[in-house]
């Protein structure tokens, strides 16, 4: 540690991570205001090249930091995440503060309430510094579907950060904030985490309240955390997790402890390395999973290969279920109660013009396919069948978890791709979610951990999967994977790709 306070110290703390910032602020070693100033300075420096944020909340953040500093000075508990700057994906409702889902249809809309996760972070003393960019309504894998322009990958500005939580992932990877929230429906936390060299956790469905998360596909959506290291992502998840009466799909139990066993190692843990994606992923992605498996075996785990062919049903089943649910959830954007309205002579015309003007191409595509799959005459052939395929995926996971404690796989088929590389053919983009989708269908947790760099020097993540509510062991294994990887494979990086 060099200076005790001021920008240099604040910068060191931000790079040391969430727990370090909170400890220093709680101990009165540095003020939340000083930490915030450094975070905002980093945003100012890099935002033009990255475009992580739809909105920077400088004033609100300053007031929140002041409140934390006042609490510390008065000897009151400022919260577990006191003074920690946090980025919020812009599909999380923030009371009175524009929340757009990166869509024209919600441009300028100010929610009249906070999402539960936003409230919990605030009560823990965290400082929300901005709303991050995403693929419109969380539909996409590159953040290119944002109506407000794409986000750039800090490791290589000509490449995508992944999606849909690309803004949060890039902000964390560039060291603008030590932690951020995203959402995951088909992989939208884990895939951008993998492409940006940071940790991304998708929890068990029902562990984190979805109240205030603008819905895409309600049986799949989950909020989760991003951070450069497993321990910090786990800490933030612990803070936001736990029963919420406002979300009828949240588990009726308090948040579990995720940190206790993080350092316990993998001696005797039964790990299954999933074989079924290997034909469809880049060699460096497959190799990363293999090397991680080997490292875990050296550390005492019982590692075996396993084939779960039902995994491959996941992608087609998802691309019926998710759009079907989305077509229902997005029906509310009709120009009546909030958001964009394009006038018409009658209400149906008004609805139709509003939605055509307000929704981008990918959203329209998904609303259309979803509507088709649910329409009379097609419902059972598509949606009904997809629901049965979902059962097969769930059963296959359950059978695997009889033999194994956790599973391992690549997170994504490839490292970060160039802008425009996958936009010609929508299906090419959808294939990015190959390895992540199955655990969204089953509702089981999964985490991406940075593990390697590909031949172009781009981050490659490895995925650890666990059965429902298996987060403690999953994160314990994730921590071991992380320990086996050199620091050069993970952020934060200075945008443009220079490390440190």
């Amino acid at each position, binding site marked *: 540690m060099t200076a005790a306070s001021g920008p240099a110290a604040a910068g060191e703390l931000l790079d040391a991570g969430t727990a370090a910032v909170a400890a220093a602020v709680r101990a009165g070693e540095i003020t939340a205001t000083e930490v915030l100033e450094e975070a905002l300075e980093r945003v100012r420096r890099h935002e033009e090249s990255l475009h992580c944020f739809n909105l920077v909340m400088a004033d609100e953040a300053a007031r929140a930091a002041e409140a934390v500093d006042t609490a510390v000075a008065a000897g009151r508990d400022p919260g577990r995440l006191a003074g920690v700057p946090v980025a919020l994906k812009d599909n999380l409702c923030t009371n009175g503060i524009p929340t757009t889902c990166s869509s024209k249809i919600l441009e300028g809309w*100010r929610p*009249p309430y906070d999402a539960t996760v936003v409230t919990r972070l605030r009560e823990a003393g965290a400082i929300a510094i901005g709303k991050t960019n995403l693929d419109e309504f969380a539909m996409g894998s590159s953040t290119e579907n944002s109506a407000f322009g794409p986000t750039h990958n800090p490791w290589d500005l000509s490449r995508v950060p992944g999606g849909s939580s690309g803004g949060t992932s890039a902000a964390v990877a560039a060291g603008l904030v030590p932690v951020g929230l995203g959402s995951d429906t088909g992989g939208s936390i884990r895939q951008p985490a993998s492409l940006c060299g940071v940790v991304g956790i998708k929890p068990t*469905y*029902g562990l984190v309240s979805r109240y205030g998360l603008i819905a895409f596909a309600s*049986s799949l959506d989950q909020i989760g955390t991003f951070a450069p290291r497993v321990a910090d992502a786990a800490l933030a998840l612990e803070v936001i997790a736990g029963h919420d*009466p406002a979300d*009828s*799909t949240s*588990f009726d139990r308090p948040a579990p402890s995720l940190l206790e066993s993080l350092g316990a190692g993998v001696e005797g843990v039964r790990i299954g390395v999933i074989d079924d994606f290997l034909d469809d992923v880049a060699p460096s992605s497959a190799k990363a999973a293999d090397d991680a498996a080997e490292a875990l075996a050296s550390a005492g785990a019982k590692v075996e290969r396993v084939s779960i062919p039902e995994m491959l*049903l996941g992608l*087609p*089943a998802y*691309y*019926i279920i998710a759009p079907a649910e989305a*077509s229902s959830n997005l*029906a509310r954007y*009709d*120009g*009546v*109660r*909030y*958001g*964009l*309205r394009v*006038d018409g002579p*009658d*209400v*149906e*015309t*008004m609805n*139709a013009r509003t*939605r*055509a003007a307000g*929704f981008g191409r990918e959203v*329209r*595509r998904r*609303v*259309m*396919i979803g*509507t*088709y799959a649910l*329409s009379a005459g097609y419902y059972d*052939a*598509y949606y*009904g*069948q*997809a*629901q*049965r*395929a*979902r*059962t*097969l995926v769930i059963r296959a996971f359950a059978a695997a978890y009889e033999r194994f404690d956790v599973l391992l796989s690549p997170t994504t088929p490839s490292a970060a791709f160039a802008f425009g590389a996958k936009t010609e*053919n*929508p*299906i090419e983009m*959808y294939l990015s979610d190959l390895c992540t989708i199955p655990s969204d269908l*089953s*509702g089981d947790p999964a985490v991406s951990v940075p593990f390697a760099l590909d031949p172009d020097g781009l981050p490659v993540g490895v995925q650890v999967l666990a059965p*429902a509510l298996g987060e403690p062991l999953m994160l314990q294994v994730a921590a071991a994977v992380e320990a086996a990887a050199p620091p050069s494979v993970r952020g934060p990086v200075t945008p443009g790709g220079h490390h440190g």
Partner: protein
Amino acid sequence: MERISLDQVRHVARLARLALSDDELATLAVELSALLDHVDSVRRLETADVPPTAHPLPLSNVLRADEPRPCLDREVVLAAAPAVEDHRFQVPAILGEDR
């Protein structure tokens, strides 16, 4: 290959309340046909004895006590509306009886 006709796409667009041009509809017909082709494996699955899963959690009828609670402030909600009249959301004419 499953092909969606232009008429079907037009019908779906009406159901989805999307006012799309003929060009946009034609492009969507191609894109949706390709996507249906891609998910065809699901349609053809042998699933006679497999129950459908709507939701990963075994939940049903999650209810709370029927007690009134504070809810959103009406003026705050109406402030976000595109058009308000007499404390209500105002919309253009609903279609007449003959439609």
